[in-house]
Each structure stands twice: as structure tokens, then as C-alpha cells.
């Protein structure tokens, strides 16, 4: 008999057996257990499971083997070697011993040598495992090359063991001549293929989750600012378009509690924006405040508007803000297409994200309300002290100087009129100065010689805009906490100058009392907040003070004023 031909025949026969074996391996990679285990950290329970799985593989290898003159040409080695590579010498040895004992029990003149060699092969795999771990090459645990070479060496070792232990020697030599080549090749290739199946499955899961995450992130990024403006037909339309483009579903609809706010995709010829919700699934989602899913299989979605509607399945997710249902997001697929699980997850996830954005939008709205309320507060803060002291001053001045008293009353009226009038958020510098002027004329009358005013205002800046009610509180602050607490002459300097890229407004007094008080009062806090809100975060209010010498409050606004 031609030895080579026979061997080749054996190789093919073994490969054929091996295919069955690989199919089982493939099925294994589809099992939930395979998904859950992680190569680098194996818990005792997982090791035990792996032991069973590989032992079964190894024993199956024996059964699928070919009977060759009282011996079995087999693929038993794959299970033992791979167990060793993946799980270490303990696992490899245990699997090898189990399969070896099983083989030993089947008898034949190679029973002992095969039993021992399988154990040795498992341990050999384990040595490779240790080597790879020690040299930080964990990623090669699932390398087909490593599996191939290791199995190759293991099978050669087995042949040597058979030659040494099997009696009679002649028969052993004859056997090895027949089975050596097919078994070495078949086992090595089988191990390599087995490993690559495992690896590819792993990779597929990873890639799937990468695309999934990328999609989700992209959608999040594209929708992030939209719903901050609130939920209306305009924002809903934008969001629906993004979801439709990114998920690739048949159609996307967004509703509030009663009507359709947006519809994008197939069927938009008869699903009109602004019409009341017609779908029973969407209504159910709103009524029961839960996710409703009609997969198009058992539960079908049927369009209540048109029989010709191509859509056949729907996922309807409630949109909630602070646990209050405000609408739904709906993903549709046409009748001829399956509703992908990933799209279902994406749909649910994106709705949570959008709910958060709506909440954020509400927060912004409330913050704006707060800013407005703060303005009211700032205006209401006009101290009664100021009013009554002004009136007292006027009543004293009437005795000697009726004209001046009349003038003061006009300024007081102007001041209060400006305070009461609230038109929008911004005012020109000129309007602000006019307000301050009236205030200062009255304070000057109160303090007379104790208050001296110096102004340095760039006339070209008169028309720039500031948050309304910015200057007066600062000047008031300088007088109330600075000048009025001084015994000597107080000086207030008000300057508005242009600087590169900004306009600088400073109010300086020569009292230097700020450090003693140590913090901004409510009035200044409000001014600063409003500047930041209306002119940008880079602008604001800064206080510097040299005790007993001066306090300077500096405000910056953008070069062209606040928009």
C-alpha cells in the first residue's frame, strides 16, 4: 500500500470528522455562556464550565476518530491543547486526563500511551498559556498560529510517546507511520480553525457594539442642543430627521400628548403634522405611560389613515420630563423589513437622552425667568433709605433754595421713572448714565462737600448696550458702603473707556472699605450674573480694593456692547 496515499486519504477522512466537530464548536460560540466569559479573568465557576466543555470536545474527538488497526486516529488533542492554552496547565491537564482516562477505558494496544499523551498535550497547552501570560501576550491566546504550532508539537510528542510506550514496538512503528501525518495535520488545522471561529465571533460582537455605540453617540451629538429650546413642531422635526437618518428606520414620528409634531420617512404623504394621534399603539403608550412595541410579526402595526401605508411595525417610547409624560418618539419599519433589535435599543436610549434635554431646556427657561426676577429684585432694592433721605434733603433745601429743590424733585422723578420702566434686557450706555446722573445729583445734594464726582466717558461709546440696571447699583454701592462711611471728602470716579476687544467701565471710590465687608452684596451679585447671562461668560465684574485707600469695581462688556 502506498503509504502517502493512504495518509492523505486519512487526512481527508479526519478533516471530515473534524468538520462535525467544528460545527459543534461553532454552536458553542453562539451560546450565552460564550458571550459572558472573558479570556483574561476566568472565575472558578467559568473554569469548571470550560473544563466540562473541553472535556466533552476532547472525548467527542475520540469518538469521531477513525479505527486504524486496533488504534484510533483522532482529533482528541484539540480539546486538551486548547483548554491548556486558554485556561492554563491546570485546565489543560484536567481535560487531558479526563479524555485520556476515557481513551484508556476503550482499550487497544495504544490505550495507555494515548491516555498519557493526551494529558501531556493538555499540560503542553498550559505551558504555552503561562508563557503568553508572562510575556504579556495575552492577545495571542486566541491566535490560530499559536494553536496550530502548539498542537503540532503536541501531536509530535504524542507520536513519540506511542513509540516509547506501546508494545509491541513493531506494531507501534507501523501505526505511527500510518496515523502520524494525518493526525498531526488534522489536529493542528482543527485547533487553528477552532480558535479562529472563537476569535471571529468575539470580534463580531465587539464590532457590533462599536458601530452601535458610534451610532448612539452621533445621534446624541446631533440632537444635543435641539430640544434645549423646548418641544415644538420645529425642534421635533429636526430631532425626527436626525433619528431617521442615523437609525435608517422606515419612518420616525414625534408626538406630544395629543397630536403629531413631526413625521419623517415613508408614509409622510398621509401622516400629516398637526393632526391628532391616530395610531392605537401610540395612544396606548401615552395612556399607559410605557413603551409599546409591535414587531410586525405577531403584533402588527396597521396604519389607520391609509391602506396603502408601507409601514408595518412600530416602537413607541414615551418622552418624559420629570416623570411627566410630554409626548412620544415613534420608530417605524416598513412591512417588508425586520425591526432590528439594535434600533429598538437605540430608540429607547435616544428617548431617555431627549427627555434629559427637555429637562435641561426647562432648567434654562427657569434660569431666564430667574434673571428677569432678579432684575425686578434689583429694582425693588432701591433702598427706602435713599428715598426718605432724598425727601428729607429736598425739604431742607426748599427753605433756602426753591429752584434747586424743584430741580432735585425732577431728578428724583426721573430716577424712579427709569426704575419702574422696564423695557427688555438691555439699555444703551447713555440711558444708563442718565439714570446714574439723576441718582448722583440727589446724592450730591445729600452729602454736599463730602462727595465729589469725576467722570471720564468716551462719547463714542454712548450707544453701546449694557444689561439694563448695571451702572446704578455699582455707583450706589460705592456711595452706600464707601462715601457715606467716610468722614473726609469722598471722591467717585466713573470711567468708560475702550480697550482692545472690550469696553471697560470702572467705578472707583476713595474709601477702600470693600475688604472690610469682604463679599459682594446681593446687588452686585445680580449685576454680575446679568452681565454673564446677557454678554457672555468672559465678561463680568471684578472688585479690587486697597483698604482705606480705594475700591474699584470694574465691569467689562464686549467691544460692541451686549447683543
Amino acid at each position, binding site marked *: 500500500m502506498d503509504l502517502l496515499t493512504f495518509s492523505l486519504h486519512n487526512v481527508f477522512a479526519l478533516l471530515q470528522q473534524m468538520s462535525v466537530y467544528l460545527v459543534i464548536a461553532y454552536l458553542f460560540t453562539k451560546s450565552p455562556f460564550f458571550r459572558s466569559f472573558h479570556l483574561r479573568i476566568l472565575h472558578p465557576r467559568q473554569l469548571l464550565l470550560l473544563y466540562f466543555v473541553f472535556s466533552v470536545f476532547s472525548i467527542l474527538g475520540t469518538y469521531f476518530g477513525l479505527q486504524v488497526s486496533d488504534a484510533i486516529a483522532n482529533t482528541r488533542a484539540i480539546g486538551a491543547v486548547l483548554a491548556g492554552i486558554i485556561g492554563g496547565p491546570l485546565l489543560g491537564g484536567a481535560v487531558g486526563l479526563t479524555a485520556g482516562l476515557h481513551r484508556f477505558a476503550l482499550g487497544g494496544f495504544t490505550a495507555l500511551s494515548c491516555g498519557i499523551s493526551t494529558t501531556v498535550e493538555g499540560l503542553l497547552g498550559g505551558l504555552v498559556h503561562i508563557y503568553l501570560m508572562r510575556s504579556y501576550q495575552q492577545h495571542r491566546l486566541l491566535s490560530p498560529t499559536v494553536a496550530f504550532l502548539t498542537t503540532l508539537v503536541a501531536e509530535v510528542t504524542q507520536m513519540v510517546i506511542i513509540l516509547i510506550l506501546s508494545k509491541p514496538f513493531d506494531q507501534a512503528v507501523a501505526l505511527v507511520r500510518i496515523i502520524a501525518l494525518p493526525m498531526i495535520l488534522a489536529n493542528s488545522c482543527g485547533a487553528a480553525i477552532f480558535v479562529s471561529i472563537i476569535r471571529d465571533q468575539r470580534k463580531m460582537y465587539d464590532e457590533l457594539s462599536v458601530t452601535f455605540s458610534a451610532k448612539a453617540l452621533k445621534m446624541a451629538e446631533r440632537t444635543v442642543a435641539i430640544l434645549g429650546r423646548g418641544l415644538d413642531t420645529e425642534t421635533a422635526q429636526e430631532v425626527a430627521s436626525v433619528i431617521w437618518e442615523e437609525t435608517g428606520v422606515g419612518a420616525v414620528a414625534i408626538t406630544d400628548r395629543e397630536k403629531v409634531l413631526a413625521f419623517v420617512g415613508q408614509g409622510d404623504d398621509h401622516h400629516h403634522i398637526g393632526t391628532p394621534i391616530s395610531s392605537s399603539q401610540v395612544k396606548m403608550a401615552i395612556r399607559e405611560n410605557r413603551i409599546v412595541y409591535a414587531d410586525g410579526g405577531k403584533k402588527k402595526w396597521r396604519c389607520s389613515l391609509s391602506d396603502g401605508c408601507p409601514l408595518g411595525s412600530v416602537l413607541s417610547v414615551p418622552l418624559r420630563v420629570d416623570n411627566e409624560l410630554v409626548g412620544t418618539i415613534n420608530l417605524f419599519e416598513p412591512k417588508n423589513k425586520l425591526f432590528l433589535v439594535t434600533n429598538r435599543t437605540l430608540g429607547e436610549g435616544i428617548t431617555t437622552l431627549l427627555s434629559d434635554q427637555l429637562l435641561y431646556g426647562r432648567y434654562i427657561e427657569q434660569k431666564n425667568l430667574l434673571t428677569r426676577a432678579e432684575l425686578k429684585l434689583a429694582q425693588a432694592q432701591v433702598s427706602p*433709605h435713599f428715598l426718605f433721605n432724598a425727601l428729607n434733603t429736598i425739604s431742607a433745601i426748599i*427753605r433756602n433754595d426753591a429752584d434747586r429743590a424743584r430741580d432735585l424733585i425732577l431728578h428724583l422723578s426721573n430716577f424712579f421713572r427709569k426704575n419702574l420702566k422696564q423695557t427688555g434686557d438691555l439699555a444703551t450706555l447713555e440711558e444708563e448714565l442718565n439714570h446714574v446722573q439723576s441718582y448722583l445729583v440727589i446724592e450730591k445734594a445729600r452729602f454736599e462737600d463730602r462727595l465729589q464726582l469725576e467722570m471720564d466717558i468716551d462719547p463714542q461709546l454712548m450707544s453701546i448696550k449694557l444689561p439694563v440696571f448695571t451702572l446704578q447699583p455699582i455707583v450706589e454701592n460705592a456711595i452706600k458702603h464707601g462715601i457715606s462711611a467716610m468722614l473726609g471728602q469722598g471722591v467717585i470716579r466713573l470711567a468708560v473707556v475702550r480697550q482692545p476687544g472690550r469696553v471697560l467701565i470702572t467705578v472707583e471710590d476713595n474709601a477702600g472699605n470693600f475688604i472690610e465687608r469682604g463679599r459682594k452684596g446681593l446687588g452686585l451679585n445680580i449685576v454680575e450674573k446679568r452681565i454673564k447671562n446677557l454678554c457672555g461668560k468672559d465678561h463680568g465684574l471684578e472688585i479690587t480694593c486697597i483698604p482705606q485707600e480705594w475700591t474699584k469695581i470694574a465691569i467689562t462688556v464686549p467691544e460692541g456692547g451686549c447683543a
Partner: protein
Amino acid sequence: MMIRALIVDDELHAREEMAALVQETGAIEVIGCCGNGIDALKLINKLRPEVLFLDVQMPVVDGFELLNMVTREIMPHVVFVTAYDQYSLKAFEEKTLDYLLKPVDPNRLAKTVAKLQQTIGENRSPVYQTEEIRRIPCLLGNRIKLIDLDEVEFIATTIAGVHAATADAEYFTEVTLKVLEERTQLFRCHKQYLVNLDGIGEIILLEAGLATIVTRSGKKIPVSRRYLKLIKKKLYI
């Protein structure tokens, strides 16, 4: 007899107006006007007014603080005058004789005057609850400096006036030694001296029951026989 009044307000026109209104009543003579607490203390000590029309809000030393620094024996009746009832003046109504709101209504002032006349007629002297003084107002150029009691080593009275000594400076104050003895933790060691017990470096005992205190910064002040015993007791010597 006209009631002698001092008007204290930091605003010029407010003082003028108050003075004019008060004089219009015909029952009160304005013997002085001033614009801050320190000047007021000086004038109270000097002129001994019977009544004080006192603005509550004043720079550095406000109306309440001023009253804390007036010696009990010469304490005038006090009428608080304020623009706004921020301090819940009603709570002080029992302590002070009366309060007026700016701008002052002459009819309301007339009632105050009637009350004043009655009180002074009955020779009732004002009793104000005073609080501990924590900072001593001292005049420094045209500023009032408030010296923390912790910094004060001793207070001395000389012909020139009362001065507070810290480790590195001395400041004149209008607050009397008696007031400071009553309303601070400073301890009397001599007819002319108060000492901060925390500021004592050493006590050198002399003959005839006298002693000298050396402060932490090395200044020497005398201890008289009468007060040495008390100081020893206070320091558990």
C-alpha cells in the same frame, strides 16, 4: 427754661432741617450740631446737652455705638432720627425717649417735645442699657480708626486727653476712662490707667505696696497700692 439740645447727623441739610424744626418749636435751644460720632462724644462731654437728636446711620460710629461710649452721669435723653425704620426702632423705644422719621413732621416733633418737657420736668434721668465696647474709636487725621481691644495694651489719661496704647502706637480717643473701665475687659490699675491683662509682660513689685507693669511690648505703667491687690487676685497670684 429752654431745653438744651445737640443735633448729630452726618448730612449737612439734614442737620440744618432738624435744627430749624427744633428751634421752631420754641421750647428747645440748639447748642450744637455735628456730623459724626466722635465729634458728638466730644460735644456731649463738653456741652452736657439735655437731649440728643441723633441720626442712627453715621459713618464709622453709628448712633447706637455712640451711646455706648457716653458716660452714664452725663447721658442726655436721646431722640433717634432716621430715614427708615430699618432697625425696628420700636424695639428701642423703651430705651430711648422717642424716635422721629425723616422728613420730620412738625406735629410729630411737637409730641416729642411735650414728652421731653415732662421727662425733664420730673427730673427723670435716662437709663440706657449699654453693651460691651469691642473697638475703641480713635481719631487719626480726618479718619476714625477703630482699635480692636485685643490690640490695646493700656489706656492712659493725661492732661492732653485719653489715649489708647497698642504695641507700636498711641491713639487719642474721646471715650473716657470710666466708660472704658465699665464697658470693656480692661482693668483699672491706677487712677489714670487701665491695663489689658492679656498684654501684661511682667509685674515688678516695688516698696510701699506699689508696682510697675511692663507690657509685652516693654512699656511701663504704674500700679497703685489700691489696685495692686485686685490685680493680684484677678491673676491668681
